[in-house]
C-alpha cells in the first residue's frame, strides 16, 4: 500500500520503519529540515520537507494516490487539518490520526477522521489493567456511536459470584459480549451462564452506563 505519514517525531519515525518492514511504500512529511535530513540518511529519500497542513505539500507527496494517510504530530489541530485535506481534497480512503488530547476524539470522528488513536487512552487502559483496584478497563470506543468496549473483572467477594446471568440486573444500555474464565476458557454466555470469581466480563456499554455496569458486576454482597 502507499502510505503517507505526517510528522517525523519518535512516533512517526518508528511507525515508518515498521511500515517499511511490512513492505509498504511510505513517504514522510515533516516541517523540520534537520529531522528530515536525519531520516533521509538512515532510511533513504522518502521524506518531504514541508507543512502537512498545506494542500500543495500533500500533492507533492502524492496524496491523490495514497491508500492510507496517517498523522502523528504532537499538535492535534495540525493532525485534524491534514486529515481533512487528505480526505476532502485527495479522497484518501483511510485517514488515521494520533490524538494527543483524548477529549478531541469525538470531534475528530465526527469530522471524518476514520481512525483515532488516543495515546493517553491507550496508556491509561494499560495502567488500569495493571492496577488491581481498577476493576474496569477501557478497550476501545466504537466509531459513530458513543458506545465502548470494556472489560470488568469480577472480584471474589462480589454479589454476582455464583449467580446466573439472567438474574443479574444488567443495565439496558449494556450488552455482555463474552466472559473469559479464570482458567482461560472463553464463554459466550446465555441467560443460564453462572458468573464466577475472577471472571473477566467483556461488554459493550456507553460512557454514561459503564459506572452502573461496573457497580452491578463488582458490588459486594
Amino acid at each position, binding site marked *: 500500500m502507499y502510505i503517507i505519514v505526517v510528522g517525523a517525531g519518535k512516533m512517526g519515525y518508528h511507525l515508518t520503519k515498521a511500515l517499511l518492514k511490512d513492505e509498504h511504500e511510505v513517504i514522510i512529511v515533516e516541517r523540520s529540515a534537520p529531522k528530515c535530513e536525519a531520516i533521509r540518511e538512515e532510511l533513504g529519500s522518502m521524506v518531504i520537507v514541508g507543512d502537512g497542513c498545506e494542500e500543495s505539500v500533500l500533492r507533492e507527496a502524492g496524496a491523490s494516490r495514497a491508500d492510507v494517510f496517517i498523522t502523528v504530530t504532537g*499538535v492535534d489541530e495540525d493532525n485534524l487539518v491534514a486529515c481533512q485535506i487528505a480526505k476532502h481534497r485527495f479522497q484518501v480512503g483511510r485517514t488515521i490520526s494520533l490524538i494527543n488530547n483524548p477529549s478531541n476524539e469525538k470531534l475528530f470522528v465526527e469530522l471524518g477522521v476514520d481512525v483515532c488513536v488516543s495515546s493517553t487512552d491507550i496508556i491509561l487502559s494499560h495502567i488500569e489493567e495493571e492496577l488491581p483496584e481498577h476493576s474496569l478497563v477501557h478497550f476501545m470506543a466504537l466509531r459513530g456511536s458513543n458506545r465502548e468496549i470494556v472489560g470488568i473483572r469480577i472480584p471474589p467477594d462480589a454479589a454476582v459470584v455464583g449467580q446466573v446471568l439472567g438474574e443479574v440486573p444488567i443495565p439496558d444500555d449494556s450488552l455482555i459480549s463474552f466472559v473469559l474464565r479464570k482458567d482461560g476458557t472463553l464463554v459466550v454466555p446465555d441467560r443460564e451462564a453462572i458468573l464466577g470469581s475472577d471472571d473477566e466480563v467483556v461488554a459493550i456499554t456507553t460512557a454514561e452506563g459503564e459506572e452502573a455496569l461496573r457497580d452491578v458486576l463488582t458490588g459486594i454482597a
Partner: protein
Amino acid sequence: MGCGRVGTMIATVLWEEGNHVIVLDANPESLRRLPEELQKEAMVGDGSLEEDLRRGGIEISDAFVAVSTGDTTNVLAAQMAKHVFQVGKVVCRIDDPACFEMYKELGLNAVSSTQLISNLILQAVHS
C-alpha cells in the same frame, strides 16, 4: 479567540456596539492590547481546548470568532464551536488560501486575510 490586532479590533467594535464580549488568548501579554473594560473579563487560555472554551462561556454564546494567527488552531476551535457546542454563528480566519477554499466548501464561515489583502492591493495596482 485570538487577541492580535485583528482580534482586538473586532472585540472592541463588538463591545462598543453593546455586545458582551469575552476575549481568549494563550498569551497574557496579548490581552493588554484590549480596552481596560474588556481586559477585566478576558481570559488566558487555549482556544483549541474544549475546557477553555467552556470556561469562556461558549455554551451560552451566540457567536464565536476564531482569529488567531494559527490557521489550524482556528479551524479546530471553530469546528468545535460549530459541531460540539452548536454555536449559532461561527466565523473562522484561515490565511492559507487553499485551506480557506476547502473549509468554505465544507460549510465553515471562513475569512482569508491573505485573499482579502491581496485583492485590495491588486485593485489598487490596477486602478
